[in-house]
């Protein structure tokens, strides 16, 4: 790479020390506005009652770990992808499999349902995002109609995971402006890799789940972490998080096979759900908020309501 010319008075050391002092200033500015904790503001809010949530459907069919899932806008269909290289579209009401596609590579890290409901996108170790139009015509070979799209020119309503290089993860969550390509905010309070992020329904905050066994809430306008969801008894990493429709509940799937339900405002755990027989790897609330689906390394998906 061509070396950038040095400006007067600018040395690597001076730039580094300026960076350090700017980091200090950033923390100072954030601390100035830290006048209260979220759970204190939430004290006047009524506590949540008891929740009865059970597995209502179990989707069996994958031959290996389920890595990712997504709901269709019709609130009924689910697409899931697995280490067995298959992407399956399920009818979650009946548990029937409607489509199955075999991907050319095995680690299908991500899949998403197109907003139209007519296609699914998935990608994995092949570093590509492929879009498959969904067809009910038995004579049509779904795989033959596949289209590969490059990641940064494809607009998906959900996630696109294209690289499994988890060593690239660090403990930072960064917020980017897609039009300028600029990072506008960065948060580094987790003590270990972050596995999942999800926006709060209003768009003003986001939650993260991390290998440090905590989930955290960051407010974008206050530019800081405003809540930590943790318990001494929870020592395994959180792999996936999602909010209920109002944002009051945070569902988090963990590597100890459980799902914890948190009161976002008060910071307390509302419920713990058992059922999976291996790590929970993916979790999404349905579009109408009536249920959520979790996928696990135990090869199954469960719909909870």
């Amino acid at each position: 790479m061509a070396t950038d010319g040095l400006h007067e008075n600018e040395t690597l050391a001076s730039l580094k020390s300026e960076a350090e002092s700017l980091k200090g200033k950033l923390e100072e500015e954030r601390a100035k506005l830290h006048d209260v904790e979220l759970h204190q503001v939430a004290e006047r809010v009524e506590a949540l009652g008891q929740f009865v949530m059970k597995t209502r459907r179990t989707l069996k069919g994958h031959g290996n770990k389920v890595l990712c899932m997504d709901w269709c806008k019709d609130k009924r269909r689910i697409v899931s992808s697995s280490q067995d290289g298959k992407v399956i579209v399920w009818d979650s009401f009946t548990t029937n499999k409607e489509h199955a596609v075999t991907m050319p590579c095995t680690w299908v890290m991500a899949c998403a349902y197109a907003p139209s409901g007519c296609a699914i996108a998935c990608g994995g170790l092949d570093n590509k995002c492929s879009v498959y139009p969904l067809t009910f015509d038995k004579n049509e070979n779904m795989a033959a109609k596949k289209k590969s799209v490059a990641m940064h020119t494809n607009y998906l309503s959900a996630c696109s995971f294209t690289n499994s290089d988890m060593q690239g993860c660090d403990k930072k969550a960064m917020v980017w402006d897609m039009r300028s390509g600029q990072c506008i905010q960065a948060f580094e309070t987790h003590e270990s890799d972050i596995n999942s992020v999800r926006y709060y329904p209003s768009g003003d905050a986001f939650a993260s789940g991390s290998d440090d066994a905590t989930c955290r809430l960051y407010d974008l306008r206050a530019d800081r972490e405003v809540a930590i969801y943790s318990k001494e008894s929870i020592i395994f990493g959180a792999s996936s998080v999602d909010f209920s429709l109002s944002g009051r509940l945070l569902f988090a799937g963990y590597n100890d096979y459980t799902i914890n339900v948190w009161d976002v405002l008060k910071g307390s755990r509302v419920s713990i759900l058992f059922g999976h027989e291996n790590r929970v790897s993916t979790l999404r609330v349905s579009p109408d908020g009536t249920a959520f689906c979790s996928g696990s390394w135990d090869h199954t998906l469960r719909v909870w309501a």
Partner: protein
Amino acid sequence: MLHNPPVFLPPAAAAFPTSGNPSLTFLWMSGKVTTGSDIGQARRAVEQLRMEAGIDRVKVSKAAADLLQFCMEQAKSDPFLVGIPAATNPFKEKKPCAIL
């Protein structure tokens, strides 16, 4: 569509907001930048930090109050909070009915 779309390193995960400012921001977890001379990298880091330090912020009390308000307003339409009768929730078992 951008002519020179920003090139993002593959993320570990990403998310799109469904309200607020849609299509403007998304989240990234893998923060590594791989190439660039040391000086160039350091200069970019300083510029980035300058920009981050200078953004407008609101007090946590105000931000928290807004989060609360949104929550309370939406609570009535959150099926997990309000509860749906088993008869209308497609996932819950319906009570058996007998034909009289």
